[in-house]
């Protein structure tokens, strides 16, 4: 809806739209949301002739002006951490752009603001992970006593994950080491003779590694007909699950070899 007659440069509009799409995709948005957002932003600024193609780890877009190529853009978007706050922010921005209440310059400013939103402090994330581990340990039949240890293991796990992510350790390695670490910690507690249900503690601890997000997003993508992107996510979910199993298995095996014998289930 180009209400004002001011003529924007197609390239600038394309850049804005694709940058917004990139931000959505990077933070875990679904494919159709990215595609629709890019399309709506372009149309809101009066670009009619465009093509957008989005997959899980890339965006391709071109615009035409009077039938002539006016610009194209390719962005490589690596799979990143989930940040729903940024997705919600971009969503709000795109809604305002569609209502025509946001100039191009203002939109750029808002996008930067959204990108640089101060992230949650690591200490909070670590605490949240501990709480979540303890909660799940309890929900799955653990006693409050088990939950206390689950809480501690969860804290250490998230601290490890945060530190690992900052050093760009591969996700596979993080999953294997993380689940192995939780298992080892829990088995050690059992080994020194504490009266704990080690399996509940382990399950509570590894929940945070589980590929729930990849599963949900993968389904949503496939459901919207983006089979390629959905496949990428579901493959990610499957491999993550296998990695967790490998980590748990390795730790149990080592414990067994060290003379721990069979574990109680």
């Amino acid at each position: 809806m180009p209400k004002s007659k001011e003529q924007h440069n197609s390239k600038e509009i394309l850049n804005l739209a694709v940058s917004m799409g990139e931000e959505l995709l990077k933070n875990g948005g679904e494919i159709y949301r990215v595609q629709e957002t890019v399309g709506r932003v372009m149309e809101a600024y009066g670009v009619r002739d465009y093509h957008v193609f989005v997959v899980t780890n890339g965006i391709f877009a071109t615009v035409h002006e009077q039938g002539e190529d006016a610009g194209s853009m390719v962005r490589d978007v690596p799979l990143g951490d989930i940040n729903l706050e940024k997705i919600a922010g971009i969503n709000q921005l795109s809604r305002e752009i569609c209502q025509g209440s946001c100039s191009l310059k203002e939109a750029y400013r808002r996008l930067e603001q959204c990108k640089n939103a101060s992230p949650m402090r690591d200490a909070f994330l670590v605490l949240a992970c501990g709480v979540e581990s303890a909660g799940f340990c309890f929900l799955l039949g653990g006693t409050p006593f088990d939950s206390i240890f689950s809480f501690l293991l969860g804290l250490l796990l998230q601290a490890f994950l945060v530190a690992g992510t900052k050093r760009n350790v591969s996700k596979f390695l993080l999953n294997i080491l993380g689940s192995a670490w939780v298992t080892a910690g829990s088995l050690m507690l059992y080994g020194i003779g504490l009266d704990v249900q080690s399996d509940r503690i382990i399950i509570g601890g590894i929940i945070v590694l589980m590929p729930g997000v990849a599963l949900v997003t993968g389904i949503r993508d496939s459901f919207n007909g983006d089979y390629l992107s959905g496949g990428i996510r579901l493959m990610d979910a499957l491999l993550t699950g296998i990695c967790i199993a490998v980590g748990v298995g390795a730790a149990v095996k080592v414990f067994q070899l060290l003379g721990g014998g069979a574990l109680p289930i």
Partner: protein
Amino acid sequence: MIVQLFVAVISTLAFAVLFHVPKQEYFYCAVNGGLGWMVYKLSLGCGFGVPVSSLWATLTLTLVARMLSALRKMPSTVFLLAGIFTLVPGSGVYYTAYYLIMNELSKSTAKGIETFKIAGAIVLGIIFGLALPQSWFNRLGRLTDKKGTSEKV
């Protein structure tokens, strides 16, 4: 049951923090997670198996997430992601790996297949939830927004 519900709400809240859900939506996220867990437990209590109970619970979660998304003007993912974690088969993955290492292959296979069944049930639950037309939810959205702009799911 009350304690379980409370713990489920707290756990979902923790996940909302981990996924950087906008702060003003923490409450709705947590309530949705608690609701999912309650449906799951009630369904188990009625004698349904774990996969079917997961299906009911995810269906509820997805529908409530879509309603909240219309009411709160937020992408429904915000409410769905944290809530779904109470149902993800973490114990299935653990037991499958454990029995495999212990060389109890038949138990391991049984657990592995059960894990896939639960994952499949979650998939179906979400798909059924998404299959309802968006226009039904948009009507809800107009309660909070007179303009009634069409919403994204």
